[in-house]
């Protein structure tokens, strides 16, 4: 005998409210999507494709030769944000990659092995050239070694000396420029099937310079109280175009002009930045953040800050592609030297004392109440030395530091309650220290 059980229809779960975004965020998203669409058409349009990295990227050179860049880290972080990284990482682990390896690498390799369909669902073209433009991260070298096995295409490497003394010496600049001239550009010309037009390169560098001016104005807006920007969570949107495929284009110039106008209008109105829950209405804590964000729980992570009325006034992660706010701009009058300086100047190429100097500058310039390190165990470029940096910075600035741990794109390493616990403790510590001794 069977009893029929009437199934009650489950109440449909209401869809979560859409995450509010500023016009610049929406435009940035469109631009990135257009780039992936362009990549999908590259083969049929006969365009060549260069795989390269974000730190010190050579976007103007790539563009001047009519080629398109694919940035594996951006693919990985976009896959993380779109909840696809766990599957890709599992795929890479199945292929024999260890649990402790940089999760960007595993996510990217897993994606390549799963048909190389990019985060927006469009197929990515195979590379015509692997351009290893930054050697400060040893993992990058291994990464491209693996990609070369996968694609069997030419590789060119630009050796970028580390700023051990915290500055770029003339010989370092000359060394990088000569590699560009003698090795990198010829290899790129070979892959592109055409010669580099120096005038075109200079024209692109001028466009870069203009966009960079506006981006720096955006960073500087955080000196205002309340800050009209979030320089970390919002900041990753702001650096999207300039660090990916758009630097040195009119599109980027216009994006940054609009972004700056948007931010300045907010500043004039005394408004705070956008958060996943809408406009930040109160600014209780101004923080400087060191280290990359977590991408798999990006909005959850952001809310942990915004719901405590904490705004990030400056971050080092948004300087990984290149550093503009200490004065560097691409210079059309000396193209190769300025490209060399750009490569040498990206954040992770700075010595630890120079990183501390920069963080101290941010703490003071943007009048931060505290600074926070998000340490990512699988990223040695960022994480080595961070606790030492924390202590030194506390002594230098007298501003308290906090420490949390997560990962780039492996969702298994994001412990929500643990991170929340530490962050709230840190913010309450800032409160207690502002108030002074207990009664």
């Amino acid at each position, binding site marked *: 005998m069977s009893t029929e059980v009437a199934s009650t229809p489950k109440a449909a779960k209401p869809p979560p409210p859409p995450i509010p975004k500023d016009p610049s965020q929406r435009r940035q998203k469109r631009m990135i999507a257009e780039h992936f669409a362009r990549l999908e058409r590259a083969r049929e349009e006969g365009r060549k494709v260069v795989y390269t990295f974000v730190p010190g990227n050579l976007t103007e050179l790539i563009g001047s030769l009519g080629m398109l860049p694919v940035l594996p880290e951006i693919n990985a972080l976009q896959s993380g944000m779109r909840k696809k990284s766990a599957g890709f990482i599992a795929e890479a682990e199945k292929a024999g990659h260890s649990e402790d390896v940089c999760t960007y690498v595993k996510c990217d390799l897993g994606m390549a092995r799963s048909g190389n369909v990019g985060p927006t669902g469009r197929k990515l073209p195979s590379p015509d050239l692997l351009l290893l433009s930054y050697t400060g991260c040893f993992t990058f070298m291994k990464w491209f070694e693996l990609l070369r096995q996968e694609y069997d295409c030419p590789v060119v490497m630009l050796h970028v000396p580390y700023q051990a003394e915290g500055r770029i010496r003339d010989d370092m600049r000359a060394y990088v420029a000569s590699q560009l001239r003698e090795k990198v550009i010829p290899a790129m010309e070979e892959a592109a099937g055409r010669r580099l037009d120096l005038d075109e390169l200079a024209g692109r560098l001028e466009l870069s310079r203009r966009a960079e001016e506006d981006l720096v104005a955006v960073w500087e807006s955080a000196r205002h109280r309340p800050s009209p920007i979030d320089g970390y969570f919002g900041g990753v949107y702001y650096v999207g175009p300039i660090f990916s495929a758009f630097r040195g284009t009119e599109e980027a110039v216009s994006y940054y002009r609009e972004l700056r106008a948007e931010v300045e209008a907010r500043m004039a109105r005394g408004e705070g930045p956008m958060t996943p829950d809408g406009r930040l209405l109160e600014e209780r804590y101004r923080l400087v953040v060191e280290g990359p964000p977590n991408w798999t729980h990006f909005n959850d992570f952001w809310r942990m800050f915004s719901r405590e009325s904490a705004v990030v006034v400056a971050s080092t992660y948004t300087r990984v592609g290149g550093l503009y706010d200490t004065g560097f701009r691409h210079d059309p009058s000396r193209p190769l030297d300025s490209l060399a300086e750009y490569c040498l100047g990206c954040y992770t190429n700075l010595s630890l004392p120079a990183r501390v100097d920069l963080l101290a500058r941010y703490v003071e310039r943007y009048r931060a109440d505290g600074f926070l390190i998000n340490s990512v165990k699988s990223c040695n470029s960022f994480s080595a030395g961070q*606790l030492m940096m924390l*202590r030194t910075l*506390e002594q230098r600035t007298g501003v*308290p*530091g906090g*420490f949390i*741990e997560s990962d780039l794109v492996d969702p298994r*390493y994001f*412990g929500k309650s*643990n991170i929340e*616990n*530490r962050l*709230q*403790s840190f913010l*309450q*510590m800032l409160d*207690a*220290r502002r108030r*002074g*001794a*207990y*009664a």
Partner: protein
Amino acid sequence: MKCVVGIDLGSTTTKAVLLDPEGGVLGRGITNSRSNYEVAAAVAREEALTSARFALLERAVAGDGGAVQELFAELERAFRLEIYLDHLAALRQEIEALVAAPWMSADRAALEPAAAEVLAQVEERAPSLFAAGAERRSDFFRDLAGAAYMAAAEAVAARRGAPYDRLLALYDRAILEVETRLLHHTFEELVERAIDRLRAAGGDRRPAALRRRLAPVLAEPIEELAFAGTGYGRQTLPFPKEAIRSEILCHGRGAHRIFPGTRTVLDIGGQDTKAIQVDAGGVVTAFQMNDRCAAGCGRYLGYIADELNLGLHELGPLALKARKTVRVSSTCTVFAGAELRERLALGQAREDILAGLHRAIMLRAMSLLARSGGIDNELTFTGGVCKNPMATRILKELVAESYGDGITINVHPDSIYMGALGAALFARDDLRAGRPRRLPTFAAAA
């Protein structure tokens, strides 16, 4: 009496502290955190209120002679026995309902009389647990009743040929229900019952004197004017957001309150370890916590105790008997359990292996302390694990090795209450600043 309340809802135990307006500790309560945090918080707070009442009674009779004081001590024991018996009655009810359940029909004939006999023995032996000078291995009903039930079940099963495992399973099932239920009784009712019990034991004169002395104390209301909560389950407390405080700040402040020389705090709880630096005023300046993995916390010891069929409190004293410290290579709790079995199989002494396991825990704590900025004199050790004498001994050795002999290490018998104490001090700040908190609604008796 006006007071403020701090509650520390930990992953293993829930603590409550009542402070008078001057910051003096009026009462304390502790219970095991069950699957139901709400009940745990309510029970801990009830216990704190009860202990505050007895503290007030003690103050009231402080000037009286020793005979009166002894009488009050007797009253408190009788009072606690009454609570224990109420819980036993609830346990009996649960077990009887389980035995009567339809799916038990096959075993009922064997189980029913066996369970009845076990429960009768447990009830019969209850008064001895609360006799003068009796040593109770735990203050939690689960542990006390569990030990008594197990002993009785073993004897009954052996004699009747009843299934021992099934008898234990009944307890395991029933205790979950009992500990997540709030029993309805007021302090006054329980005191009356306790007095009746004393009368039955010792004649009529004493209870009359007791009542006279009790009346003014019982008449004095205990007003809870402000609350603050902390601990692993703090978000589930029925408190407004502003009354939820970080564990780090609470532990730092509580430890500094008890030992004002404290500059570094090590707190090892059930599933997290915290290394906290505080300034001369007790304000936190830096901290580190374990991340991703809870090996090296209290639960690690709990797991090892289970593996060895020992009570948690027996581990430390046993490890102290070690003649050498076996080097345990695993930091993972599960691997350490495997290593333990392997070494036992190789014939190594239990106490020597235990010494190694304790050392492994404390090494992890030392690493966390180093990452938080090192150890500044004085170091205060708090949390459930500081009750373990082997843990404190190894901590002393390791601190001396790395930081020299100049570090004073403070351990207080009530260290487990530091978080709740810190929370209560934050509640007191609110009260003083004219921000009294609306009293929360706690779980009510069913």
